[in-house]
């Protein structure tokens, strides 16, 4: 099993980002995903900064992947995406099929990100033909769905053409909108957002009127209220999942990473903390826990 750090979903100040990746450089992660995937207005690091960071981190023994935006609306965003896909050095995590089209044209290998709807074997077969090296499973898919899909590809001798990665820790990106919900929570529109996401390094919690933690607002993204946590499910990933993804957190990311690495060897059950869940993996509602 390999372990990855997914692209940071939140908006942090430049110094915080730099410090995070200094730690990442010496961490036990095998793969590091870099880049802004949520909102093009988040520019603490610009494209050249991300590329510099990628080159710096590439000096370690880790694989560096450039992650790209999930929701592209403006032509300027598409142009920036095109430049990423033509960087000539690093492979791309595509979070929109537009990125796959650019990678295909540039003959660049890509990771199919979790925001792309690749739900089944025939779709994955086509993506392999386009240069897909790794499939990050869509967040709502569980073990049985993934297993059946991979078994089908195995029968076609395609299973060894790509790796399979799953987000195993962190709030799940559940939806993307034209609207910025963080700005709305401060009574402003997206055009007047004042980059307020930077004040919420873990997003903003949304509770029901009965105080159940439902969602996390993260700009135009809505995340799960619970932290997805598959630490009890690593054994059931054997021969199925190749890469376990930890989504960067404002605190304790590397402790969590080391804990997952340790749990691969010592898989005793531990009760999940409050507001953690693993429902999707078990093919039930995402917010539920087994």
């Amino acid at each position, binding site marked *: 099993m390999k372990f990855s750090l997914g692209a940071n979903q939140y908006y942090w100040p430049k110094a915080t980002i730099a410090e995070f990746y200094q730690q990442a450089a010496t961490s036990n992660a095998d793969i590091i995903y870099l880049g802004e995937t949520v909102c093009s207005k988040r520019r603490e690091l610009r494209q050249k900064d991300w590329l510099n960071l990628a080159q710096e981190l590439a000096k370690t023994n880790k694989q560096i992947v450039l992650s790209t935006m*999930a*929701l*592209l*609306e*403006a*032509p300027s*965003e*598409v142009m920036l*995406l095109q430049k990423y896909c033509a960087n000539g050095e690093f492979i791309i995590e595509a979070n*929109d*099929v*537009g*990125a796959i*089209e*650019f990678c295909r044209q540039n003959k660049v290998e890509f990771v199919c990100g979790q925001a792309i*709807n690749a*739900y*089944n*074997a*025939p*779709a994955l077969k*086509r993506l392999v033909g*386009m240069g897909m090296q790794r499939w990050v499973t*869509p967040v*709502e898919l569980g073990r049985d*769905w993934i297993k*059946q*899909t991979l078994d*089908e590809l195995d029968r076609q001798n395609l299973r060894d053409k790509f790796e399979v990665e799953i987000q195993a820790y962190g709030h*799940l990106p*559940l*939806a*993307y*909108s*034209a*609207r*910025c*919900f963080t700005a*709305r*929570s401060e009574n402003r*529109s997206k*055009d007047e957002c004042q980059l307020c996401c930077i004040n919420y390094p873990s997003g903003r*919690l*949304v*509770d*029901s*009127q009965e105080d159940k933690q*439902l*969602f996390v*607002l993260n700009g135009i993204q*809505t995340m*799960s209220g619970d932290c997805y946590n598959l630490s009890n499910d690593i054994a059931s990933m054997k021969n199925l999942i190749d890469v376990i993804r930890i989504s960067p957190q404002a605190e304790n990311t590397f402790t969590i990473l080391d804990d997952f690495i340790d749990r691969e060897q010592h898989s005793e059950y531990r009760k999940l903390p409050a507001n953690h869940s693993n*429902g*999707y993996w078990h*093919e*039930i*509602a*995402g*917010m*539920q826990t087994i």
Partner: protein
Amino acid sequence: MELLCPAGSLPAVKAALEHGADAIFIGMNNETNARHFAGLNFNDKRILQAADLINQQNKDLHIAINTFARPGDFKAWKYSVDKAVDIGAKALIIADMAVLDYAADKYPEAEVHLSVQASATNKAAIDFYRNNFNIQRVVLPRVLSLQQVKQLSRQTDIELEVFAFGSLCIMAEGRCYLSSYLTGESPNTVGACSPAKFVNWQQTDDGLESRLNDVLIDRYQDDENAGYPTLCKGRFKVDDSLYHALEEPTSLNTIDLIPELAKANIASVKIEGRQRSPAYVATVTRLWRQAIDKYQADPENYQADESWMAELGNISEGSQTTLGAYHRSWQ
């Protein structure tokens, strides 16, 4: 500009034809369509009747096969594609790459429209589907501003279809898992958002409560209109503020934008609501027919009638309408 109307039943097909639809979109009564609700949609016999009715009047039939195929069950999606081609549908509306691949391979002559559930919001994404799956039209997700729709229209010569009226998905369609997070069932996997079987209503001392899989979505006082608990339209708390954190119950209404949409070269305006009644289909079709005809008769002086707005407001969620993402201030 084509007026494309929804139908979940034969009476709705008839209502749309009677009131001036140019084209009608429907789905089969199975998990292959994104409005898979009990008692709705068309079995093998009914779909033939619908096709006959529509053909007799020289109108166009579009068939939505726009969920994502479950492993081991791909035959259901193939069956829907085969059936749609067999009955002579003008267009197939497809989202899943697997289904697009099947249709392009087996029926290269078939007209395929990229479903909104495929979430193609930009030129590169459109090129992806066009170059790999030979689509002829794209249904745009409800995330673009009018300015962005115009920009996109200038960049591509593919036919563009937009949502013009109806329930407002505020998330990029096909990329929203809020429903499966709460219930285990989503538009992508089973073709339903906030499915009715998880809905529960209860009158309590605190008001009328609506729940989805036991999660409190909203609580209404006596003087408030209660709406279906679509989970993105609930009232929730962010810190100490209680408000519609994502969106209020409201419907999209772009009847004011007809001139702008026409100038942006939009091929088709789509009315949402296959799950709504024949009476809804009749009203919306009639008013949109009037509006498009009025615009085409005198494009320079088009203005939406006050009476249309009032009538459309009455059949809208929460009795209110919005321009949604087309208008930047909404975003």
